[in-house]
């Protein structure tokens, strides 16, 4: 029932944002406009990155889509998959693992809370997921025994285990060092290539956004608006070497110019 009756095509929409505006009350009764009329259509199976300076409301946008925060104005509409019981999954900036649960138990938290989800062959799925994330030998370890990068991998696995149709990622590699970060990006691409979920990926790293995405949304500083949406037509599957190609450099510098001009305009 949850899967659409026809196979997903490029034209199917995963999520549509209509004039999302977010205001909140700050100190001394002032109202801050965090997001100002953001409209965006994300087709199913697309890897879309959102880049922008800190405080441009890009994380807030993900939380609004996730339903963790309510927008002041505007509407979020989901595509044909909207009735899927596991529509959304989210990866946060921090791993947010529960220290009293083992790695495997942290992954299965999706089956201990929320709507009843099928537990059949859960163990095999966890094992498979751990394998994919390179954490096979760590199933019974506690989070404190893992490095930061491994913890974040568990965070990704946790968001994937209930197989959501849309994956929201809020600067998932922001807290990692540069080396780990590149590797994690490539691993994420490998995982994504398997079933091509719709991914909304928030980052402030331009190379990361270009390396991973089909499209990059560039946002302005507060109030957050969409400055431009840039298509990334680099061939897939991508390797790290793509960073050295002129095409990559051109797209990255276009984004950088956009971000800088938005900065200087304020």
């Amino acid at each position: 029932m949850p899967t659409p009756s026809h196979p997903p095509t490029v034209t199917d929409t995963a999520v549509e944002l209509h004039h999302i505006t977010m205001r909140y009350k700050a100190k001394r009764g002032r109202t801050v406009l965090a997001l100002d009329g953001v409209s965006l259509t994300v087709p199913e199976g697309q890897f879309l990155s959102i880049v922008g300076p800190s405080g441009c409301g890009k994380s807030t946008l993900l939380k609004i889509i996730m339903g963790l925060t309510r927008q002041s104005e505007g509407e979020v509409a989901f595509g044909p998959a909207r009735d899927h019981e596991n529509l959304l999954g989210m990866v946060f900036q921090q791993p947010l693992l529960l220290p009293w649960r083992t790695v495997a138990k942290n992954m299965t938290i999706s089956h201990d809370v929320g709507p009843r989800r099928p537990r059949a062959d859960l163990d095999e799925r966890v094992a498979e997921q751990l394998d994919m994330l390179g954490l096979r030998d760590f199933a019974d370890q506690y989070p404190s025994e893992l490095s930061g990068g491994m913890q974040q991998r568990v965070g990704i696995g946790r968001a994937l285990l209930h197989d959501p149709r849309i994956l929201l990622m809020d600067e998932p590699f922001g807290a990692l060092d540069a080396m780990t970060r590149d590797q994690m990006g490539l691993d994420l691409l490998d995982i994504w290539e398997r079933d091509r979920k719709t991914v909304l990926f928030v980052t402030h790293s331009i190379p990361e956004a270009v390396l991973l995405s089909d499209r990059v949304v560039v946002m302005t500083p507060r109030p957050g608006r969409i400055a431009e949406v840039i298509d990334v037509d680099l061939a897939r599957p991508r390797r790290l070497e793509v960073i050295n190609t002129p095409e990559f450099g051109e797209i990255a510098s276009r984004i950088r110019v956009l971000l800088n001009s938005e900065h200087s305009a304020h």
Partner: protein
Amino acid sequence: MKLGNTRADERVVPGPGAGDGAGHTPARRPKAGPAPRRQIPGFVLSWGLFLILVGMWQLVVRAFGVSIVLVPAPSDVVRSLVDGLQSGFLLEHMWITLKEILIGFGLAIGLALVSAGLITQFRIVDKAFLPILVLIQTIPKVAMAPLLLMWFGIGMTSKVLTIALIAYFPLLVNSILGLRSAEHEQIEMLRSFGASEFQIMRRLRVPMALPHIFAGLDVAVILSVTGAVVAEFVGATGGLGYTIQATNFNMDVARTFAVVVMLSVIGMSLHAVVVTANRWLVFWAPSRKEHARDL
């Protein structure tokens, strides 16, 4: 007091060697410990000091011929202790006091957890009750012991209630802090899987509260021994507090000391139970120092 010194050291030094007992628990410590240096284990030092002090006490009392009615020598205390244990006299009164403590302490735990749950879950309860509770907390609880005796009689009830009253507040405050210690992001993480308020409580807030609750238990367990003694001082027909008064009246000071030893045995055992339970349940907490509070 004399035995109390060793208690702290035994606990704070779970270093190599001393922590063997906990080796099979699920406790997992960070692997990067300090490099093993040759050191005298803490418990050897503290026990050594303890024995030296007792030895000096014995020497001074004997050398200056201090009257047994003023300060008995350690050997007199030990003799009285063995005597009291053999006749069953000490154990009988210890059992009375222990029963009061266990019931009163249990009552305090139950009430504190329930009220902390209500206060943290319902804003109305928080706003209405918390100021009143803070106000009541400023009353010295021992001052209530005579009133409780008057209202509930000389039997066990007045003792149990005095103990519960004294142990309640540190438990309540720590439980509230604990139930509020979950981070906003962690709650959002659970919400992203569709967790209900109850599920957030069960899967996140309660486990997060455990280290704080154990800090409260650690304080409250010692306070409840004090509460029992005070309540028995005020009026009782049995128990260790009652025995202290009786032996004092008879100028049997050696026996008074023996009773004090029994009281600290109770205190140490209950404390050990709390610490052990803490190790089992909160094995995942990053630092144990934070809640290994000493009283």
